[in-house]
């Protein structure tokens, strides 16, 4: 047995932890699976039904496995700009940005949301960050190593996180918290609900309008009950979360993004603004600038697939008989009504309309490079 096998076995044997809504999910009939070290709901009534409900009404997702971190102390903005390619100094109170942690070679360690609290939220912290559940301890370790002593990180594992997503999310949330519906996409605010402070941002991972709500763990059951008592809202599991984000063209860390790939190849250059590109001073800047001028070796693209056979992660992408890439996410897309995939393919083939093939169990299925998102985003933006 190799060392890697030993490590894998050890990880599998670690007991899964329970999130604050564990019992609530089971009462709602969820099928629970192990994910990111926790027992989590994969589905309630079924992935197709839950996916469709979220696209038409509003779905409530428990994403309390994600890491919520508050940063405070002198020089936080400058210190974080050394780790993130985002414009932190220019981040106004109540505003949120998508960013990522990159290593010195520009490999992506995680993707994340970073925002500037206001109204004294999170004990007056200067920055609030949400990172992926499966990577949160590695992220924290990386940041402890690279942030100066003056910066304090508070991993707020006493906070739960809910996402309310779908075209009816705004009216649903407004019936409990009237002011929340005034937020625009990527704006946040502090609200009080039955004595609990809620930090609400208008954002999500489905391509739909919606909110992410940071709530103290001791209030999350009450809030989840109040939301699911609304006619627009049903609980939605991780299965539909994955099919929704795939249709929205949003990458999933650990699959579409890894330490082997860079922001430019991943089509995440939008998260690196003009000033940061020009000034640099963050891990991975060299690779970002090189790939902006020379192009990356491979790019993340969307693929539409002919027929009904889904192509899964790991399936080789072919041009003629030559492998030119690999599927990194794939499955049946309920709203599209056909299989779709994300893949990393050679840069020269990564233009919309390129005809390729995917090998699935020895068969070749026809695939075409497609624009993403596969289903249009319906964010509530500040200006049309």
């Amino acid at each position, binding site marked *: 047995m190799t060392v890697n096998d030993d490590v894998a076995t050890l990880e599998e044997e670690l007991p899964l932890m329970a999130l604050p809504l564990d019992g609530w999910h089971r009462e709602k009939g969820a099928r629970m699976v192990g994910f990111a070290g926790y027992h989590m709901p994969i589905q309630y009534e079924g992935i197709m039904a839950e996916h469709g409900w979220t696209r038409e009404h509003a779905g409530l997702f428990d994403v309390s496995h994600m890491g919520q971190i508050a940063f405070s102390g002198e020089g936080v903005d400058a210190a974080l700009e050394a780790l993130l390619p985002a414009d932190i100094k220019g981040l106004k109170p109540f505003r949120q940005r998508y960013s990522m942690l990159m290593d010195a070679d520009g490999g992506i360690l995680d993707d994340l949301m970073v925002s500037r609290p206001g109204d004294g939220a999170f004990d007056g912290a200067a920055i609030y960050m949400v990172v992926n559940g499966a990577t949160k301890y590695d992220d924290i370790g990386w940041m402890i190593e690279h942030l100066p002593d003056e910066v304090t990180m508070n991993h707020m594992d006493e906070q739960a996180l809910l996402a309310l997503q779908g075209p009816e999310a705004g009216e649903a949330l407004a019936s409990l918290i009237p002011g929340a519906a005034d937020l625009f996409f990527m704006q946040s605010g502090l609200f009080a609900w039955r004595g609990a402070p809620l930090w609400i941002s208008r954002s999500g991972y489905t391509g739909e309008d919606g909110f992410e709500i940071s709530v103290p763990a001791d209030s999350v059951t009450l809030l989840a009950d109040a939301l699911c008592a609304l006619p627009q809202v049903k609980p939605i599991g991780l299965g539909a979360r994955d099919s929704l984000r795939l249709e929205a063209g949003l990458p999933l860390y650990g699959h579409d993004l890894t330490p082997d790939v860079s922001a430019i190849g991943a089509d995440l250059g939008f998260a690196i603004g003009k000033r940061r590109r020009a000034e640099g001073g963050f891990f991975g800047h060299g690779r970002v600038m090189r790939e902006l001028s020379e192009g990356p070796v491979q790019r993340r693209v969307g693929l539409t697939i002919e027929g009904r056979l889904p192509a899964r992660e790991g399936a080789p992408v072919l041009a003629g008989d030559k492998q030119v890439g690999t599927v990194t996410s794939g*499955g049946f897309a309920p709203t599209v009504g056909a299989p779709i995939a994300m893949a990393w393919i050679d840069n020269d083939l990564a233009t919309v309309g390129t005809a390729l093939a995917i090998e699935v169990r020895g068969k070749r299925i026809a695939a075409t490079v497609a624009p993403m998102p596969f289903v249009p985003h319906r964010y509530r933006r500040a200006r049309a």
Partner: protein
Amino acid sequence: MSRYFTDEHEWIDVEGDIATVGITDYAQEQLGDIVFVELPDEGATFEKGDDAAVVESVKAASDVYAPIAGEVVETNGALEDEPALVNSDPEEDGWFFKLRIADAEELKGLMNEAAYKTFVASL
């Protein structure tokens, strides 16, 4: 006609030397929404335990094994257009394929309905 079950959650209806094979209600419930079924070619021959079909749910692909040895004489074409038949009617219209039984002795190792129910209850 006799119905047998396997611990891989397949059912087998035997009529003469022909066995009709599908997956059980428990199996479809575990798999969730089925979006594609890859059926074997007619004329293919299997040993017991060979990969015979693949069921794709929204999330994942699962193998269906040949519960006994035999030759495929017919497949359920209705599943091509409507794979969700496996969810809505797994133990009747959602059948997968029919085998000409190579060795009827292999049926003796399979469960009857009562034994299968007990097996599922133990999971």
